[in-house]
């Protein structure tokens, strides 16, 4: 069966196996069907040797978190992300309109999403939302409106994050303003970056959303994104100048006032799409260092936490196993708090009992305390 993968790309893996340790699903299962090398070999079997697309083969592809930890580990620079994206896209098309696309549909309808999540927040307060859904423990009942303070930068606000974690947007805006920058939150004009769609195999929808730049946007103004997953997707698929929030702030760090650091031992969890895709995880350390008493690194070399966009909803068992490994690493570091620059990661970790904060929220708190 033709998965539509370029044959030379498929041939670019020499099966050396150096990726295995960087793959979270291989790490927790020890099973080579759940490894990048294994998945590429299966793509070859299916596309080149007409191997049947059995339930096990599908499962191998479905369980990939697409963290892309394997890409920096690959000395032959195999574009694994593209290979698995193609494969997923093919499988999704073959399955037809499925539950996943229905679940993702509200993301492009910001008002509906907000009404829905307010209802969910109410239901949470009545204790009728099952815990196993892994939702954040207290979704907001109301949100403060976005207000523009100038046009030095745009702040991309997105879908779920704007509905569930708008406070992070406000904090990001305040920090940028403290550095002397005028910020315009983009809001509902560009409701979703499409990352979750691409992740779920809805490639065309995903890239279309990333390119659906509102006409009113001035393309000369940089766009700051404080969700690592969205930032990675926009950097890959839109033509605009996109920065991760910490990456951008690092260039303006001198403009921030010097304050008393918060007394905390802060561990940094690198979201995969910041570390492996944007490869811009180092600025997070740089911008946090002046604002906390102690920064500590985790000892798992940036292995994925298992959130993976909507992965933790679609593959809860594997996501939980992967998270357990991450939590064990966090426990060894003994932090008082974990900084995570991606809403999906922080929600997934919080559901596992970890105290997480967005780096911008921590900086904002330090600035406001003084």
């Amino acid at each position, binding site marked *: 069966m033709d998965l539509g993968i370029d044959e030379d790309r498929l041939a670019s893996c020499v099966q050396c196996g150096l990726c295995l*340790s960087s793959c979270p699903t291989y790490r927790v*299962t020890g099973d080579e069907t759940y490894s990048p090398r294994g998945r590429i070999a299966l793509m070859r079997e299916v596309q080149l040797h007409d191997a049947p697309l059995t339930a096990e083969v599908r499962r191998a592809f479905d369980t990939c978190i697409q963290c892309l930890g394997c890409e920096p580990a690959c000395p*032959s620079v195999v574009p694994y992300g593209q290979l698995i994206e193609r494969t997923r896209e093919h499988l999704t098309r073959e399955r037809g309109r499925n539950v996943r696309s229905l679940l993702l549909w509200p993301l492009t309808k910001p008002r509906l999403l907000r009404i829905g999540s307010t209802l969910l927040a109410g239901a949470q307060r009545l204790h009728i939302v099952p815990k196993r859904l892994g939702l954040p423990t207290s979704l907001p009942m109301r949100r403060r409106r976005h207000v523009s303070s100038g046009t030095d930068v745009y702040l991309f606000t997105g879908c779920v994050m704007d509905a569930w974690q708008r406070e992070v947007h406000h904090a990001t805006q305040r920090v940028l303003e403290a550095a002397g920058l005028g910020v315009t939150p983009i809001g509902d004009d560009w409701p979703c970056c499409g990352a979750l769609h691409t992740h779920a195999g809805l490639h065309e929808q995903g890239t279309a959303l990333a390119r659906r730049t509102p006409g009113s946007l001035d393309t000369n103004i940089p766009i700051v994104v404080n969700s690592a997953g969205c930032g990675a997707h926009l950097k890959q698929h839109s033509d605009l100048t996109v920065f991760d929030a910490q990456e951008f702030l690092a260039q303006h760090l001198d403009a921030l006032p010097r304050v008393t650091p918060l007394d905390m031992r802060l561990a940094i969890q690198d979201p995969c799409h910041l570390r492996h895709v944007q490869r811009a995880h180092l600025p997070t350390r740089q911008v946090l260092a002046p604002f906390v008493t102690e920064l500590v690194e985790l000892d798992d070399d940036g292995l994925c936490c298992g959130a993976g966009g909507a992965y933790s909803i679609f593959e809860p068992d594997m996501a939980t196993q992967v998270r357990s490994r991450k939590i064990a690493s966090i426990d060894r570091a003994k932090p008082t708090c974990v900084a995570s620059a991606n809403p999906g990661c922080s929600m997934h970790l919080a559901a596992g009992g970890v105290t997480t904060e967005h780096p911008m929220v921590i900086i904002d708190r330090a600035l406001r305390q003084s």
Partner: protein
Amino acid sequence: MSNDDELIKDLRKVLGDRVRVDSAERALLRRDASVFDGGVAGPICLCESANEVQQVMLTAITHGRTVVPRGAGTGLAGGAVPLGAPVVISLARMNRILDVDLESRIAWVEPGVVNLDLTKHLTPLGFHFAPDPSSQQVCTIGGNVANNSGGPHCLAYGVTNAHVLAIEVVLADGTVVMLGGLDAEPTGYDLRGAYVGGEGMLGITTKVAVRITPNPPAVRTLLLSFNTPREAAATVSAVIAAGIVPAAMEVMDQRITIAVENYVNVGYPRDAGAVLLAEVDGLEGGVELDAERIEAIGRANGATQVRRAASNEERMLLWKGRKTAFGAVAQIAPNYYLHDTVVPRSRLAEVLEKVYEIADEHNLAVVNVFHAGDGNLHPLLLFDGREPGIYERVHAAGSAIVAASLDAGGVLSGEHGIGIEKQAFMDRMFSADDLDHQERLRRAFDPSCRSNPGKVIPLGHSCADIQSLRSVPHEVWG
């Protein structure tokens, strides 16, 4: 496959859903990191304890089946590929570091512990595990024991055998034994020593006591550029002759250096004909002196540039480049055949030139990256497996390289093992009598030839192996 059904049913009694029998998984495990295809594997057993390994072995005995152990599947000689659909005993989930005793400098580990994970675990304690195969970020301690693995730093520290004190083994008859011990001078025959390098044919490792090594107080890493590999090889011989014992001395030729630099971007010179990565460690005063001497010897032998790693980050990146070199070759061609022979250091330059000639004669691309200090050559023949008739050419060139190495007084394998790759060359190295005794050693551990049959010893010397294989592989190449 009705008797397979019974076997699977019995295996499931031991492991539940950790027995994998689907076509996808069985097809994947046809191979390791080499070019050899062993055929479809039997049931795959993801074991989590020595007891489970023992139960799986006993089940295999009941059903008259053979077994093959597998760690991360990064072997380069086909040692872990399944011949004749054996039961695969996967040890990847047995990955716990059980105990670290700093006072005695011993760590107990399970066989599935990744080599680099052990070193990372020990680093904050001031120690490391000395054998550092280039695949150390993925390869497992069990595989290191099975292949008596080396690595760049084994030049000064010795190969795996020197770092293993005791091994718990499930023998092919299902008994569990402890080979070796923690005492400095164990009494009796050194069965541990016989077992290390056994390539899974003497039993299945389930627990290992390894020696841990204190981190050196000072390290100097030098990168020397040369116009030709011959000059780099001559420098290596001269350094050893001068009485210096560097921790590591590694050479890469130009093509592989470029591929590596494309990946790590640390400033490996793209225009040098060869580079020598040399490292000295020990006490501050000594390493500085040795570094200066190596630099002088290098310049006397034609080094055009000598650079020192200025920081630990730079040093780690230089090593990352060297250690991932074999995986970087897909930038040049989609398939590789990585060779592993050892020649006397003094004849390194000469054999190296012969290797380039052989590749030319067979119209194949070759790159060389090698543990120069040990005289351990790693020529990589590069090709596109989709080209008709290519495997015959690669095979022929490989044979010629082995022959050239043996002619120069070398040996078949430095560290990758014999597996099925070098099996056919064994009788060029050993007499029939030698091979007979090797076979007797194997039979002493495994009279039934149940554990990893069909490897190492040439089939002509190993009748029982042929009997225990359900089908004799006739074409494992490609």
